[in-house]
């Protein structure tokens, strides 16, 4: 068949398809009435494209048909996205399940974080001057003032205004750290481990120093409620990052690329859940933790908070025999 004949036969269909695609791409409702035509026209176009290519008809025409087919393919085979109503099911079922599936990595990350924090804490508790090797005198003093039983967060009446400022700051700071902890796992897990080590160090240093100077009550009273969500979420971001790194270090029977892709999909729910937990933690840290309340109330709330997190992640979404 000559090109001129081929083109004169196909042109009306191609024009119709192009018009239909343009309307659908722009989301015009009137196009939906004629949407039944789309698959038919698209398949005919695929035929035409294969024929034009095989016969070496005209590279300009092949390019035009190819691009039209690309648009049709994109529209016809797109995945459904944005099922926001599923967020409840995600929190109640999918997220805790994803976490439990990675319990080994969670144990590993917890061991790294809490082990290091306790270790460095013990060192600082025994030989107090060690802290000045890691932190400047100024920042140590700032922490001391902040958690001083006679002042700082314990007695200073914070305004609602400060709470809002800190809420925004905690979200920006903590969630960004979690996302970076995850992403840097792509460097064979090294970035994630460094991030965990760094956070464990600063947490252990400050906690042990404050215990030593007699501010244990104010410090733990302040952090206990939000730490359930915050520390756990940070560890979960670590789990997600380690999953990426492990996929590259030990891909098993798959290629590194295939292994990475599987791991990325698998760790995404954990990262999303960790992000949401950090937003909750920011709310608690900004609006509850600075309140002036008797230590028993603080510790009771903290225990409740930890109980919620642990039982949620341990039991939510289990089916019998799971």
């Amino acid at each position, binding site marked *: 068949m000559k090109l001129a004949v081929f083109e004169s036969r196909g042109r009306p269909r191609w024009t119709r398809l192009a018009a239909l695609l343009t309307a659908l791409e722009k989301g015009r409702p009137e196009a939906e009435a004629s949407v039944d035509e789309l698959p038919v026209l698209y398949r005919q176009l695929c035929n035409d494209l294969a024929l034009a*290519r095989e016969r*070496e008809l005209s*590279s300009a025409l092949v390019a035009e048909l*190819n691009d039209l087919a690309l648009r049709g393919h994109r529209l016809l085979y797109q995945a459904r996205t944005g099922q926001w109503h599923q967020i409840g099911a995600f929190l109640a079922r999918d997220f805790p399940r994803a976490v439990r599936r990675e319990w080994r990595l969670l144990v590993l990350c917890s061991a790294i974080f809490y082990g290091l924090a306790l270790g460095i804490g013990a060192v600082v508790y025994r030989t107090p001057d060690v802290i000045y090797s890691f932190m400047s005198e100024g920042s140590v003093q700032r922490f001391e003032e902040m958690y001083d039983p006679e002042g700082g967060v314990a007695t200073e009446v914070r305004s609602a205004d400060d709470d809002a*400022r800190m809420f925004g700051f905690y979200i920006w700071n903590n969630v960004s750290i979690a996302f970076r902890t995850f992403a840097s796992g*792509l460097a064979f897990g090294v970035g994630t481990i460094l991030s965990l080590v760094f956070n464990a160090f600063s947490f252990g240093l400050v906690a042990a120093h404050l215990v030593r100077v007699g501010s244990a009550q104010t410090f733990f009273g302040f952090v206990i409620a939000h730490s359930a969500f915050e520390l756990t979420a940070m560890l979960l971001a670590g789990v997600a990052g380690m999953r990426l790194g492990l996929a590259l270090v030990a891909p098993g029977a798959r290629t590194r690329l295939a292994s990475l892709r599987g791991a990325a999909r698998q760790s995404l729910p954990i990262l999303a859940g960790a992000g949401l937990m950090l937003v909750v933690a920011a709310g608690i840290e900004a609006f509850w933790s600075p309140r002036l309340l008797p230590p028993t109330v603080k510790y009771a709330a903290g225990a409740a908070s930890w109980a919620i997190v642990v039982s949620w992640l341990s039991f939510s979404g289990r089916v019998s025999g799971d």
Partner: protein
Amino acid sequence: MIDTIHALQTPEGVDLALRVAGPVPRALAWAVDLGLQLFGLAGVQVLIGAAFGGSGLALGLDAIVVFAVLWFYPVLFEVLGHGQTPGKRMLRIRVVQENGTPVGWASSVLRNFLLVADFLPFLYLAGLVSMCVDPSFRRLGDLAAGTLVSHADERRSAWRAGRAAVAEGPAAPPTLPLTLEEQGAVIAFAEREPLLSRERADELAGIADVLAGGEEPRSRLLAIAAWLLGRGA
């Protein structure tokens, strides 16, 4: 053939060619997006400042807006804007899944969050190396998410085809039988001829002067192409 075409096979059994975009347009699109993000943030900051003054509430809102914009601007635009952030729209490129379908939430979140890893060790070096090594110019985030960035000027191809049309002229059959491939080459020459300089066209046509049979090769090839395409008899 050495080119930047990513072939994908459709369920209809036909190969579609996707022209993937290289580091330069992608870096330019990134720069445009960064500019827009900073500009937008500055604007929002002024608005928040006007509404709440320098209070703690304003600072808190600022922090949340900065967080949302820096992490989710590319995700929202890519998923809701047919794979295009404003910068990508300006550079006429688009993010798609490797099978050519639109990018979804999971893929977009992955590829954009992993930009952090592409940044390592500094200034997107890892991403650049990955793009230069991968035949489809995928950076690390693209590899993990299964996405790629393609040129998005499909609607202009009809215009290109019109420009490259074989000029009207006399048609004449070839003196020798031509294989399909040779026919394709002659037609491709005729389509590109209007875009070439006269000297270059003469030079290229000279390669096939066995077809010319003593006549001027360029006009002879054009005539053969017109005949092959079905003009005249």
